[in-house]
């Protein structure tokens, strides 16, 4: 009690009345989370304002509900300004005083955010109290220029065989995950976060998962899964649920990028997942229409491309002079009826450095992840792929594409020559090898060993149906019997001659022991 009194007395003694005046405006009209304000003639675009609920109330009333309500200036007009309310819009009323805060929308960031779930304004929503983050950063800023960047040269392993082998992602890259509803887009993102656990702590990327317009139950489930698997130790979750105002859903990805940039500038690697940008675009469209900006294609505003390009351009691999950190972005886009030629998908495809395209048909056939290898691509990731993975994965993509063509052809012809049949069998086997359940990302060295076994004929005697069982046995066997060679691959990031020799011996032993003719 005494300490409280002491603290208050200290504050009173230190208090001095503000010497100057502050710029204020008056709420002219409000509705749908948008406010028209009279005054504030010097306010800047994207500046924060405070709706002062205390001004026209008595002190007792004001202290009862003293939570601040912020706004974000988005339209500068001839006779006033328009802003979006970042909070409970019901508390903002006509005639309310609006104070100019003189700073762009900012959040507090530092290491204390790790393991926390925060709102787009950086406020904790996980019930664990204040984050205590100290460094204040504006959430909108210009991306790094050419001089400050270096080329993508370090891989970011997702732990998903199909991705790491055929569509490799580099640290600092922007790789789009695109597909219909329920095709496993979020699963790829979450598996990627989970897989970072297998990275050494020094090089492990800090992961930021941004949930935009998601059901709160889904986000809670994801957070629980990440916590259970120990992934919250290096993860920050930013959530703007479906129930949040459109303004917060629009801001959430920028908050994620700001948090990621903080770690990037510390020389660390960061991974940010925007789940998903379609919902952000919808929120921005809603805001823009309410702000009376002219609608364009699909009623999106004219600057929808700029919205996504300025966000994704913040992903970067910094030069050594700038600390060498990186920010990898995995934006997610949800398509409707597999239509990749819609406005938002084409925009984001053109901005990113490649895309992982998930197909509902493949998903329904049981392929996991349901990646369409034909139209999935990584434009810069191959430069970052490890020598080991490059060596073993080689022509998988081409062979699988040929297999898909043959498979289609097979529907019309029943008589096939032996070579074609062999090719089809090999394709089916490889498809099965690349099949991987949700939540079981594999360490990079294990992926390499499995793909090595599959591409070097060690699994040729196994039928496609049995691949899953055999692969499980092989993984178990390699963990027990080939730990040394796996460690060598992990450390050197390549399959050297001696490692290859040992691996072959181990695989021969496995074939002899487990793949009996009866199999």
């Amino acid at each position, binding site marked *: 009690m005494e300490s409280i009194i002491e603290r208050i007395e200290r504050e*009173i003694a230190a*208090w001095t009345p503000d010497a100057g005046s*502050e*710029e*204020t405006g008056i709420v002219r009209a409000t509705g749908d989370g948008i406010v028209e304000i009279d*005054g504030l003639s*010097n306010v800047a675009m994207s500046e924060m304002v405070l709706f002062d609920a205390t001004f026209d109330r008595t002190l007792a009333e004001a202290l009862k509900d*003293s939570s601040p309500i912020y706004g974000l200036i988005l339209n500068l007009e001839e006779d006033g300004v328009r802003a979006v309310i970042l909070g409970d819009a019901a508390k903002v009323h006509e005639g309310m005083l609006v104070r100019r805060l003189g700073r762009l929308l900012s959040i507090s960031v530092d290491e204390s955010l790790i393991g926390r779930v925060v709102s787009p304004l950086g406020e904790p929503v996980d019930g664990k109290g204040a984050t205590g983050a100290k460094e204040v950063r504006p959430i909108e800023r210009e991306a790094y220029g050419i001089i400050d960047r270096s080329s993508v040269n370090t891989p970011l392993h997702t732990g998903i065989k199909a991705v790491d082998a055929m569509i490799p992602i580099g640290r600092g890259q922007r790789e789009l995950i695109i597909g219909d509803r329920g095709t496993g887009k979020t699963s790829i993102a979450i598996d990627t976060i989970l897989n970072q656990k297998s990275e050494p702590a020094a090089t492990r990327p800090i992961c930021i998962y941004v949930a935009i317009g998601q059901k709160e139950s889904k986000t809670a489930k994801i957070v629980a899964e990440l916590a259970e698997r120990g992934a919250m130790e290096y993860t920050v979750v930013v959530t703007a649920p479906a129930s949040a105002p459109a303004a917060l859903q629009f801001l959430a990805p920028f908050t994620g990028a700001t948090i990621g940039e903080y770690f990037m500038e510390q020389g660390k690697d960061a991974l940010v997942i925007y789940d998903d940008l379609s919902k952000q675009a919808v929120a921005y469209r809603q805001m823009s229409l309410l702000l009376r900006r002219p609608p364009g294609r699909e009623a999106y505003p004219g600057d929808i491309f700029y919205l996504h390009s300025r966000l994704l351009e913040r992903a970067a691999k910094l030069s050594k002079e700038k600390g060498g950190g990186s920010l990898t972005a995995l934006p997610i886009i949800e398509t409707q009826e597999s239509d990749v030629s819609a406005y938002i998908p084409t925009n984001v495809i053109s901005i990113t450095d490649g895309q992982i395209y998930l197909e509902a048909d493949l998903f329904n056939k049981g392929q996991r992840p349901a990646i369409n290898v034909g139209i999935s691509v990584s434009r810069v990731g191959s430069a970052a792929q490890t020598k080991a993975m490059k060596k073993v994965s080689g022509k998988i993509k081409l062979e699988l594409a040929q297999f898909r063509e043959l498979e289609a052809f097979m529907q019309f012809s029943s008589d096939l020559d032996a070579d074609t049949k062999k090719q089809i069998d090999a394709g089916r086997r490889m498809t099965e090898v690349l099949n991987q359940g949700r939540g079981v990302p594999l360490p990079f060295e294990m992926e390499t060993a499995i793909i090595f076994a599959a591409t070097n004929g060690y699994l040729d005697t196994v039928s496609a149906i049995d691949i899953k069982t055999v692969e499980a046995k092989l993984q178990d066997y390699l963990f027990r019997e080939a730990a040394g060679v796996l460690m060598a691959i992990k450390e050197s990031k390549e399959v050297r001659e001696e490692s290859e020799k040992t691996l072959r011996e181990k695989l021969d032993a496995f074939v002899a022991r487990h793949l009996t003719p009866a199999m």
Partner: protein
Amino acid sequence: MIDTYTRLLEKTAELGDEQAADAAVTKLILHLKSAGHMKMLPRVVRELKKVVARRKALQPIVEVAREEDSAAALLAAAREGVVAEHAIVNPALIRGWRARGAGKTVDRSAKRALAAIYQKIIA
């Protein structure tokens, strides 16, 4: 068009020339009649009323906690650029005064100070 007509009449009124304002209204009515847009007129009036209300809300105002502080408060407010003819007594301020006008607010009230201390302590 309603916005344009409203703005036109607003600008004319700002000139302070009664005759010019009358002429502008007459010409506007004639123009609307000839164009068959007379139904716009009530909406123009509504918009003009809004402008008046908005201006009233933005008029300089000085509030004091106690009547006896009025003179000093008006003087201090004028020094800050808010010129008002008289002060309004608002006991909710507890002590001190506050002034609003010309797009700014000067708040030297105890209420503001106490609220600020409260915010600082609970933050």
